[in-house]
């Protein structure tokens, strides 16, 4: 017989066995008026940490409106990928600065 306390302990254990690989955090550095390379294995649920190492203020803004991260010089900000598909990112202050992300779905996660 499973007591209620044992059951409560068992649930997170069982959940731990079923949960997909942990969401990843990727750092993308902005420097010299350019975004660093897009992380190649980006998936829904992953977070990008945008790090501004430039002397000017920049932003990491999704053209779709999915995220808009303002970045003073030396600062960093995050954006979590919520949808699969291509994401065009640009800098609001310097629109010729661009990077294209490709977000894969979560289906590939559970190996």
């Amino acid at each position, binding site marked *: 017989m499973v007591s209620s306390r044992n059951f409560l302990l068992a649930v997170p254990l069982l959940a731990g066995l079923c949960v997909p690989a942990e969401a990843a955090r990727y750092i993308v550095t902005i420097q*010299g*008026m350019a975004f660093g390379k897009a992380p190649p294995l980006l998936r829904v649920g992953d977070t990008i940490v945008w790090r501004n190492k430039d*002397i*000017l*203020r920049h932003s990491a803004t999704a053209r779709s409106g999915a995220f808009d991260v303002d970045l003073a*010089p030396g600062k960093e900000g995050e954006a979590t990928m919520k949808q699969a598909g291509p994401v065009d990112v640009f800098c609001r*202050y*310097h*629109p*010729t*600065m661009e990077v294209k992300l490709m977000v894969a779905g979560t289906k590939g996660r559970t190996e």
Partner: protein
Amino acid sequence: MFRESLFAIAAILLIAPPAALAESTKPNDAQIAHIAYTAGALDIAAGKQAIAKSTDPKVKSFAEEMVRDHQAVNDKALALVKKLNVTPEDNPTSQSLTKAADTKRAELDKLSGAAFDRAYIDNEVAYHKTVNSALKDTLIPDAQNGELKALLEQGLTLFTAHQMHAEEIAKSVAQ
């Protein structure tokens, strides 16, 4: 046409300064700092005029970018010369850049609407091309101090992105 010759004068002065710099044909760090700061300050002045006069949101936004970015770089330049205990030294190159920019600004002052936008953005393309060449060919190679050189290189990266942006806008501004 007139505009091009003014910038040609500025460019020539950068490559072959007049007899005033008798000891060396190369600008020293104090003069380089002055030229770089002046180039930024002139673009800020041009940007402020465009913010006040432009009727095209892309042009206005570009002008705001010029004011913001050049102010940021000039602030860094001021901090650096203070740290290095260098007093920026006025020189014929800074003077000719200033004169050309003042003339251009007066010319633009008489324009309005699409004519202003066209003239402003075309001048921004030409101006950035001139300053980028000066940075690449003279100011960066001749700079003695490593930190000054590094800041000028950052300036060149920035000015190059600005030039690209100006060129893109120039394509879309009405003729």
